[in-house]
């Protein structure tokens, strides 16, 4: 029975994430936790996030979970979601704060100028709703998911990885931005798989089944 720790550092509601895992993995032990020891002992770790990144970083420090999260991100199947993805990078334009620096790169805000759709109408920020996700690598977490499946997004900032090899998928709004990254045992997404119906549940089920192995050589030829 796999033990999944959902890291709770006091930012936002993690019930949706936990419920979705309980649904796709009824035999797993899903634990929403503030205890670094639980994060350290779990088989796999989910790192969600809601709200503003400066608040999330501050709470992560205050709850003493930073080290446990850093360690988990290095050694076991690890899934970052939304701000949980953004916090893995070195720096965010949101509040100009440093992230955990697990991945090279930065997090930027959608520009206030030039955000137009094909009809010339202004695109709203936050980017909220169902957008198509295009995988660029052959990764176990993408298995069984269409190459243009729609996932639910709600965010105003997006990651710009420092190494192109980290990009696992992108989306268009209106330019191509990275919405999924992969490195070894780590996978992180900007969208909300727990709110993305069939495609999202499939990604979570893939994470539960994943052994954490990915050698980075899975680029589509």
């Amino acid at each position, binding site marked *: 029975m796999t033990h999944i720790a959902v890291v709770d550092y006091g930012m936002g*509601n993690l019930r949706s994430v936990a419920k979705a895992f309980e649904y796709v993995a009824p035999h797993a032990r899903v634990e929403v936790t503030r205890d670094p020891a639980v994060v350290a002992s779990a088989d796999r770790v989910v790192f969600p996030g*809601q*709200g503003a990144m400066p608040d999330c970083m501050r709470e992560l420090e205050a709850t003493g979970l930073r080290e446990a999260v850093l360690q988990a991100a290095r050694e076991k199947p690890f899934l970052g979601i939304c701000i949980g993805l953004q916090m893995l990078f070195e720096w965010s334009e949101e509040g100009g704060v440093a992230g955990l620096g697990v991945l090279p790169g930065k997090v930027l805000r959608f520009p206030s100028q030039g955000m137009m759709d094909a009809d010339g109408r202004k695109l709203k*920020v936050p980017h909220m*709703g169902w957008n198509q996700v295009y995988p660029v690598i052959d990764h176990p977490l993408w298995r069984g998911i269409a190459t243009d499946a729609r996932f639910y997004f709600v*965010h105003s900032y997006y990651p710009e990885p420092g190494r192109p090899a980290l990009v696992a998928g992108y989306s268009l709004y209106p330019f191509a931005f990275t919405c999924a990254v992969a490195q070894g045992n780590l996978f992180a997404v900007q969208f909300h798989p727990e*709110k993305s*119906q069939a495609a999202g549940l499939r990604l979570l089920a893939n994470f539960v089944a994943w052994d954490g192995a990915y050698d980075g050589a899975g680029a589509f030829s």
Partner: protein
Amino acid sequence: MGLAKRIIPCLDVDKGRVVKGVSFANLRDAGDPVEIARRYDEQGADELAFLDITASAEERDTIVPIIEQVAAQVFIPLTVGGGVRTVQDVRNLLNAGADKVSINTAAVQHPDFVAEASGRFGSQCIVVAIDAKRVAGAERWEVYTHGGRRATGIDAVEWARRMQALGAGELLLTSMDRDGTKSGFDVELTRAVCDAVDIPVIASGGVGHLDHLVEGVVRGHADAVLAASIFHYGEYTVRQAKEHMARHGIEVRW
């Protein structure tokens, strides 16, 4: 290619049952909320909205177990509103499984509550619901509260801008003139608000035909369209609504 326009079935909930009235009166029973939510999810609804129209504060707690049950089975965004007045109300609904909470009357009474709630929980989960009524003979609209019973004198477009500034992540805009009439959205109102703000706007009030959904997006510039009765009584499925929108060149999620 890009972001899909959303279709959001709305469930008006009174004492634990889904109901639908005309212009906030004459309520009719439309069924079990969990069953209805599941049906809409299967049909491809992009999101679900629950509006708790229960009058008394004690009975209002009946919404919490319903949201818990829906959230355990339906994995699309859930917005819950109706009588949300305090940070604790917001927290209770989020803990029950709501992804967004909509604030209406309390935003007018205490605009700082919107700032407080979005500061605490993030603007992504704070929706401000605006009930607006056309000022007779003018191209402007006034904000109403208390389920459309009380005029405020506030201009709806200015109010929309102010709510965005205070941290609303989305607006749910209802035309009081059209709600329950099945005569279509107030397109001018929808467009005036949508063009005035940078955050997404959900158009609501008046959908009686699938062409109305198209109008809301194409002429009203809405990011999402909300409807209740056309879905509750089986006139149309969400799928049929999406097919109709797609035929008119609107991008939808399948």
